[in-house]
Each structure stands twice: as C-alpha cells, then as structure tokens.
C-alpha cells in the first residue's frame, strides 16, 4: 500500500489546482444538509459532512440521461463522458459505486454508465460525522479497500494520510504537495480506519449473511403488510438510494417536432405502475399491493441481488430512512424484527 501525507494547510492549494484542471465535485452545505456539487473554490468543500441528500451515483447514472439523439437525418448515441474528480466520497458510497460498476457491467455492458464511471476519479475520505440513520457498520461498509483512486484519512490537526490506490489517483499527486508518511501518522490512520466500530446508532443484530438467509424465507411475513399500510408509494427511498439503479426510458421531441432525444430517468419499484403492463382488455399489475412493492425493495436489497453481488445490495447509508415521509423505509427495524421472529 502506498501512503503519503498531505498537511492540513496543503489541502486548499491541492483542491484549487484540481479545480483549475478539471471539474471537481464534492460535498457542499445546502441549507441544513449536504449535497455533492461542483466546487467553485476549495472553501466550499465540507469534508466534515455526515451524508449527502443524493449519492454520487448521480454523476454516472444521471437522474435524466440522454441515450439517443434523433432527427430526420438519423440517430446517434450519447455516450460523451466528461472527466471529473469526485472529491470526498465516504466508504459506504464507494462500496455502492463498486456494486453499480458490477451491475452495469454484468451481462451486456452498459457504456452509458460505464463511460462516465471510467472518466471519473474518486477521492475517498473517512467518515467524520455519522448520519443519524446510518448503519454502514452493520453492512460491512465502514471500511473499503478498493473502488477509489485516492483515499484520505483525516488524522486530526496535522492533516491527511493519503492512500494512492490507482494510476488515476497517482495522476492527481502532481497537483499537491505530498510528503512521506511517518510511522506515527500511518498508525494514526490505522486507528481511525479500523479502530472505530461502534459509531452508528442504527444496528442490525445479525450479520448480513444471516439476514439474507432468513429474509429469503420470509416472503409471507406479516411485517410487509404492517409497514406498507402507511406507505405512500412515493419512491423517495428508491431515489436517494446509492444502489438503486432501476430506470424508465422515454422519448421527447424538441421544439422543432422533428428531432428529439430518447433518455432514461430514475425509476422506483415502490411506485404503483412500476410493474404494470397492458393486457387484453385492461392492465395487469404484477405488484399491485403496496405490501408487495415494499417487500420487493427489501427483498431485492437483502436477498435477490446477493447472487450477483455476493452480499446484500445495501451499504447502510441511512438515506432511505431519512427521506421517507412516513418514516417506514428504514430497513434496520424491519430486518431486526424478521430476525427475532
């Protein structure tokens, strides 16, 4: 592992030079929350954030992404990746990005996502403040060992221990003043990354693997009905999730009524018409009940995607729990209750 050191006062000049070179996005304050947004100056960067409203997946899998441009002359694809540095990504979001990388590469490769992903450089940061509904420790997502190009560990007053993980990360070093790391600094890094294991207030009582096994057998558990009775089917839990990747595809004309775009937008399995089809003489909804949609979301995260990802498709960021207007999207109490029964 290649470790370097960046003194605290060297952070600003480093980020400044990066901004002058490429688009840099990072956590910024927005009212009482944080968002990933383009940095105009290093002063806007808030590496002490708890979590952002939307995860950084929005840079690879945009809320609305053009797929095809068409006109009377023909049509062309819209794979036009833009180099971008995503600065200050928490480990749970890095883990979520790695999952999406896999899911968009699995089977037929989706270059509309992958090209954006390849063009991005990811700079990770350890979590300073834990978001109120986060449970990333329970999901094994408090520590990541891959999925980033540089990883910064804030070891206090002195500054940051910087892990250089890839060539893309190496390329950033030219923009900052990095020094050799001392054994003392390296030890502080280790303590911070590996020595804190009880910071999330939300906790699963069991390992994710145990949860998967039992939830798989709980298709007819009464809890789905119980929780979904208060669900608005709004899909907010889907929209803020770093591992949700369902989408809708639509066409739109330009004002000339001759040319236009085919684009995709984020979609959510909680919404009523997600699994609806037109059949002879009407419509058929394969997940008509709110409870079946509620169950689908938890099952997909806890069980269905395990066969592809080798574990649950949840990183415990806690965004769904805070986004839900009815306060029922938090998977922790649901999974704990299933495990009790």
């Amino acid at each position, binding site marked *: 592992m290649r470790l370097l050191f960046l003194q605290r006062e060297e952070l600003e000049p480093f980020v400044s030079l990066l901004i002058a070179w490429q688009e840099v996005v990072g956590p910024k304050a927005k009212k009482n929350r944080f968002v990933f947004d383009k940095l105009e100056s290093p002063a806007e960067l808030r590496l002490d954030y708890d979590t952002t409203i939307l995860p950084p997946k929005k840079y690879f899998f945009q809320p609305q992404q053009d797929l095809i441009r068409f006109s009377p002359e023909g049509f062309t694809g819209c794979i036009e990746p833009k180099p971008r540095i995503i600065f200050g990504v928490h480990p749970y979001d890095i883990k979520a990005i790695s999952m999406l990388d896999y899911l968009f590469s699995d089977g*037929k490769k989706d270059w509309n996502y992958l090209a954006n992903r390849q063009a991005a450089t990811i700079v990770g940061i350890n979590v300073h403040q834990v978001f109120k509904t986060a449970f990333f420790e329970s999901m094994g997502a408090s520590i990541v060992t891959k999925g980033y190009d540089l990883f910064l560990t804030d070891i206090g007053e002195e500054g940051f221990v910087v892990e250089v993980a890839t060539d893309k990360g190496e390329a950033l070093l030219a923009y900052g003043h990095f020094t050799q790391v001392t054994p003392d600094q390296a030890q502080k890094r280790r303590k911070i990354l590996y020595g804190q294991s009880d910071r999330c207030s939300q906790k699963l009582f069991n390992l994710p693997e145990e949860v998967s096994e039992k939830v798989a057998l709980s298709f007819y558990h009464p809890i789905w009905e119980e929780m979904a009775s208060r669900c608005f089917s709004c899909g907010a839990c889907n929209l803020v999730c770093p591992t949700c990747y369902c989408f809708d595809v639509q066409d739109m004309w330009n004002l000339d009524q001759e040319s236009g775009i*085919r684009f995709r937008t984020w979609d959510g399995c909680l919404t009523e018409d997600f*699994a609806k089809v037109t059949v002879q003489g009407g419509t058929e909804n394969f997940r008509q009940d709110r409870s079946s949609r509620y169950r689908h979301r938890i*099952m997909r995260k806890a069980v*269905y995607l395990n066969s592809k990802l080798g574990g649950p498709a949840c990183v415990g960021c806690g965004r769904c729990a805070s986004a839900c207007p009815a306060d029922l999207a938090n998977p922790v109490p649901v999974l704990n209750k299933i495990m009790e029964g």
Partner: protein
Amino acid sequence: MNHPYSYADDREEKLITTEGAEREEENIFLPKPARVLQAQPMGRTEKYFRLAFSDGSSMGHQPGQIVEASLFGYGEIPLGIASSPTREGYFDLLIRKAGRVSTALWNLEIGDTMYIRGPLGKGFPVDEFKGHDVLIVAGGIGLCPTRSMIEYIEDRREEFGHFTLFFGARTPKDQLFPNDLARWREEIDWIEYHETVDQGSPEWKGNVGVITTLFAKTSISKGCRVIICGPPIMYKFVIKELKKLGIPDAHIYVDLERRMKCGVGKCGHCQINGLYVCTDGPVFNYARIKNLEEAF
C-alpha cells in the same frame, strides 16, 4: 516543477478517444432500422408486420425470443418475434394498439422504418422439445410468440413427435393470423389444431368456451412437452389440466409478458422476485418459477 496539466490531460484524452468507437458499437440502446415489407390489420386492434433489417442482416433468433421495437419520438415496447428463424430474409411482429407507442407503431405502412433491438432474452429450448410430442396452448395475442415455434416445427417436422395446438380467442373477430388458422384447420398431416372462443357469434360453428375445454377434444401423451402463452389468468387453469394428465412441471414451458424498458437485465421493471423476464426469460421452465408468487 513540471506543468501540472500536461501529464493528466494526455491520459484523459487517451481514455476517451481510444475507446469511444468501441463503446458506440456496444451501445445497448442503439436499435437497427428495419423496413416494413408487409402490413396488415388483424383482429380488432392488432396489425401484422413483416420486416427486414435495412442492412440486410438476419435476426438470427431462437423461437420465443423478443425484441424491443420503437419509433423515435414515441418510445420502445417489447414484442415477441412471431416468425421462425427457419424462414430467412424477414421477421414478423404483431402490434396491438394499446398505448402511445404501440399506436404509433401500428400506424406504420409498407416502406416505413421501424427501429429494432434484438433478439433479446431466452426463447424456447428447442432441443428439449426434439424427439417429443409437443402441445402449444396459446390464448389471444399469446399466439404471436408461439407462432415462431409453430413455424419452426412445421419447417423441421421430422424432428418432433405429434404436434397439437390449442388456440383460444375472446370472440371470432379477435382471432389472429386468419390465413394461418385456415391452413392449420386443413393441413392435418403435420398439426392437430383445436380452437375455441369465449363468446361465439351467429356465423361461428366451432367450439365456444374457455381454452381448457379443448383438453376434452383430444388426448395428450404423458411425455408431451408443453408451451403455454396467453393472458395471466390462463396459466393456472391450463396447468391444472396438465397436472391431471400427469405431465411433470419440468416439461412445461411458460412464456411470460412484463413491462420492460431496457431488455438487457438492467432497468428492473420485468423482475419476478430475483429473475429478469428479459434475460432469464421470457420463456421459463415452469418447475423453476412455479413457487414465485409474482410470476402469474
């Protein structure tokens, strides 16, 4: 100190330019234009299309596979391919006028262009059917995707045992592919065809009743391989009849319909629990999905 911009700029340029063309070739959303060779309204709201890819390439599908068909400015819908790969130089689709996209596609005429992605998904495992009697149970528009298998059996007749086809429509006016039906009624040497309608009409001389009433008209062998495709309600009643005949679940194949947006296992709409209808199906072995509550 070296100028900090030069080194990294080169790297980025390389990353994008060397792989751009490759990505465009592999762009899973780009369709291929296909020319409408024939267009014929059928039934009350359906229209039959015969198409050929404008670049002269063949579909190269298995019976039972699907395509995403689109028209720019309107959108894309999944459709079962209605012709057999043994009939080269064209492929058939049937469009039911139901929503915005299907209506726009329905309105196409001979010489127009339709945009096609496919073939997609897994079709009927023809090798599993070879050497066995075959029963196809098709309800309504379910005749479309199964027609690809019916034609396949016709063209490679020596590879299959006794072939029986049940077709049910709501009324005589809802019957699809009238030329095919007329032929199947006559050509008894390769196909045993039985049909019914839910509601008759004064001119209708055939059977009236749900599709399961056709089981009384003939005998189906225990070793028969079965394909079922029709409206969601039909499956459980047909399967009940097949169980009475002692046909094992593993010899039954169901062809399912779902909402699909990508056709390549990403968008999530067609999922039945953990399975994707677009990539794991649309044809499933019944034994594999019979316990999935959301399947039927």
